[in-house]
């Protein structure tokens, strides 16, 4: 059902945990649909220097959180915005159709963390919109 890469990121998640002093925190999803993702970012001079996640959810939710945080580390904010759900899925060698929403959740969580960073610092990030409060019914 899952690719080897998904299994690898599920069994050995990268960047699991929290940051002592995150610059941006995003949390999306809800317990109703069974997935909640939290992404924390450290940002210095427009570059994401560290990323951590915590996820309540299925195997795909954990694997997409792991991969999404892995993909944005070391990237500039603008580069990180290019890390779409499609990019996360491709990096994981695909997801079963019923799990595509997990990758959307990972993208949303990243955007929510960047939004939080922008809000805290009075910045406007081009191409970034306020996170949707409840994306439980996103598909």
């Amino acid at each position, binding site marked *: 059902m899952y690719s080897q890469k998904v299994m690898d990121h*599920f*069994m050995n*998640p990268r960047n*699991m945990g*929290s940051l002592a002093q995150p610059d941006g925190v995003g*949390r999306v999803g809800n*317990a*109703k*649909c*069974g*997935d*909640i*993702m*939290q992404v924390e970012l450290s940002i210095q001079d427009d570059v994401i220097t560290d990323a951590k996640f*915590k*996820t*309540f*959810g*299925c*195997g*795909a*939710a*954990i694997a997409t959180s792991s991969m999404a945080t892995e993909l944005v580390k070391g990237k500039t904010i603008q580069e990180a915005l290019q890390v779409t759900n499609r990019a996360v899925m491709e990096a994981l060698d695909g997801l079963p159709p*019923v*799990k595509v*929403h997990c990758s959307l959740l990972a993208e949303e969580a990243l955007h929510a963390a960047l939004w939080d960073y922008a809000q805290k610092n009075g910045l406007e990030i081009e191409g970034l919109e306020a996170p949707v409060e409840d994306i*439980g019914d996103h598909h």
Partner: protein
Amino acid sequence: MKTIYFDYAATSPVRNEVFEEIKPYFSSFFGNPSSIYQLGQEAKQAIETARQTVARVLGGRTDEIFFTSCGSESDNWALRGVAEALQQKGNHIITTKIEHHAVLHTAQYLERHGFTVTYLDVDQDGLISLEELEKAITPKTILISVMAANNEIGTLQPLKEIGAIAKRHGVLFHTDAVQAVGHVPLDVEEMQIDLLSLSGHKLGAPKGIGALYIRKGTPIHPFLLGGGQEKKQRAGTENVASIVGLAKAMALAAEEMEEETARLTVLREKLINGLLEKIPHSQVNGHRTKRLPGNCNLSFAFVEGESILMLLDAAGIAASSGSACTSGSLDPSHVLLALGLSHELAHGSVRFTLGLGTTEEEVDYVLEVLPDIVARLREMSPLYEDFMKKTKEETV
């Protein structure tokens, strides 16, 4: 790695005794039971002997047993067959919110075709209220369908009392006994059951065989039209080998039931109590005693079921979950929600079902492995982090 199997409610391996018994019917006795020559008549005889066995185990008569392809077919036939036959008399059916989808989706189908259906609530243990059942009966009610044992939580319904109520009101009583047959005592006479669905592969017979008990005189339309098999009620060349296997498995299960129930109950209680003790913030789903001997269903707060199953699988353990992620929809188990569980707890449920092959060593292995799995996932869970922070604040 050897799989440690804890999913007997999903399916069970064919028992050796059953396999040996049915082998000749694939080759030596391959005849079509409808053929008049000896080879055909031998197959016919095997079916009739099997029918006698099934009838004896259920407490019914031989001519009240009809073989089908599976439990779902039996459920579909019972509901649709009775509804069609009695639509002039009434259009109301009573069932429960925790039925298997084979009953629920058939009930919904009937709703789209002019029938009205009452779906009874259950209490936190999964039991229906007999009072509510009786109150739901109207002059238009033609059928009550309540499952004998729930497939997810193992709760056993009071069939005898339901049968008495149905009889008193002149309403037919169907029970989906797919999980119960071979595991708990059933008697269609004592329980006044008019229709009973069962399936072979839940008790060591092959997949692809089921039966519907239909009390003599019950108005019901045939399900499959075609040849004259099963007294023209269910056409299709009989699955001779599997019919023989079903009867063998049911006879064995009836003989062993008392001893096996005692053995499994001890193992089940060890598993349930061990997990409750070792894993904080966990709970049992379903009734603690009115329960299938092999069913263990627990919810673990702050974690999600599919993740638990994947880590169990990596440890060689096969189990199942009421999580949405194992069903292909966003909603978790309708059964767990009907008990009043939150979505979060329903997503965090795991079902272990024990059977003939289950040993105490296997139970011990789950008790050794699962606490670490849940702890590992809780480390990852933002909900657990919230909970720990809150607990800390409250204690400060």
